[in-house]
């Protein structure tokens, strides 16, 4: 009877010591994991989720901007038609002309309104790139120019794009840079096809 009692005490103590040793090892592991730098850009499950959310946000922005009733131009198309071909950068309050930030010249349109509210104020860096078709000497080329540029995107950047067809009647000769984006087919009403790409990344 005495032997059994002694054996039981020992087993409980061993179990307790085992649990204590396991807790100690887990503490060390947690410390190691915490010591590792986990940023939003670190490739992980949460990063994938964030990329997915960012992609959906970009899709929502472009879906909203690209909607038009019959007989009307979408907000996105309207912005392209009225873009003067210059590049702009977010300076914390508005989209100032790149290289002439002190001039007071800024880009203010439907796209910048939504980007400032949805992306800039949430510290989501973004570029807006326009790719258009150019033809010369019977050859066809694709050119890209940034409408909004906030630096080089990270490797985890999300790209969302929409194509917009422009027609001869869409061209506003006072603002639209016809010297930049030309008529690819003068024989028809088709003027050009623009690929509007929003690149977004967390900083």
């Amino acid at each position, binding site marked *: 009877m005495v032997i059994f009692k002694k054996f039981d005490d020992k087993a409980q103590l*061993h179990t307790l010591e085992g649990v204590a040793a*396991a807790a100690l090892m887990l503490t060390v592991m947690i410390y190691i994991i915490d010591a590792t730098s986990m940023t939003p850009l670190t490739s992980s499950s949460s990063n994938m989720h964030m990329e997915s959310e960012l992609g959906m946000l970009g899709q929502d922005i472009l879906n909203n901007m690209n909607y038009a*009733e019959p*007989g009307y131009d979408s907000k996105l198309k309207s912005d392209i038609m009225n873009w003067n071909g210059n590049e702009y950068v977010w300076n914390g309050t508005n989209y100032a002309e790149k290289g002439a930030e002190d001039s007071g010249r800024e880009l203010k349109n439907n796209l910048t309104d939504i980007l400032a509210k949805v992306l800039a104020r949430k510290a989501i860096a973004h570029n807006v790139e326009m*790719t258009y078709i150019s033809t010369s000497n019977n050859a066809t080329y694709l050119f890209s120019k940034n409408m909004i540029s906030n630096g080089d995107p990270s490797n985890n950047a999300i790209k969302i794009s929409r*194509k917009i*067809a422009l*027609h001869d009647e869409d061209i506003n000769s006072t603002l639209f840079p016809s010297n930049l984006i030309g008529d690819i*087919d003068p024989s028809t009403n088709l003027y050009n096809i623009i690929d509007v790409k929003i690149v977004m990344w967390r900083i």
Partner: protein
Amino acid sequence: MKMVVSMINKMTTSKMIRNQDAQFMLLGAFIIAIGLTVVTIMLSSIIFEGNKAIMAGSDESKTDMVNVMQMAQDEIRNAYRNSTTLGGDDTINNFNIHMREFGNYMSLIYAVHGEVVTVTWEDWNDKEYAYFTDNGAVNGMPDWIVAENTQNSTIMVNITNISGPLNVNVINATKIWQKDFSFPGMSIISDDDIKANINPPYSIKFINGSNANGKYSVTGNTVYGRNFIYARDYVLNTTITFSNSKVSANVTVPISVPW
């Protein structure tokens, strides 16, 4: 002497047992820690794969396909309006040239993203006018609302073939005013005609649309001050093929022209 030897033996045996226990305890601790680590990694992998599956659901290819379909629809309508407005003998030819150029440039601009897009279309040569149903097909919904919340409007109906009565209803909150059509030919219901019988805001509804085919247009503005135009001559089938490394699709869309 025997007793001393026995005590030493007992002490040695006791020490040995304690040493073995310590090793087993350490081994147990290792097994528990490794087990917990394995479970954590497995859970993390499950969540990771779950997120990948969610991302697959929100694949960009779907929105790209919808974008191509919308562009093809807008372009067919634009090409039709432009070629028919210009008129002349080459109306259909001009339409086909416009669409061919559009299809070529679409293929080019999508190729940049590694996507293959082709657009094929039909013209209205030897094609009969659309029915007055919701989708323009003979088996489409015969009773449907063309415009709502209308303040001012003019309705043009040009019937080519008719096999039974076609009715245009103008409806407000308290009253229904109906105009009946039984013979081929063009009729215009002016804004004055409508307002002499019914007060705005009203809805415009086609009834028994499958009994007749032809052209119609409804122009005007809404109570919110927005101008609108709804018109249909033909329904042209357009086929879009879209493929990239993930998906391949072939979609035929009926597109009503000119709006």
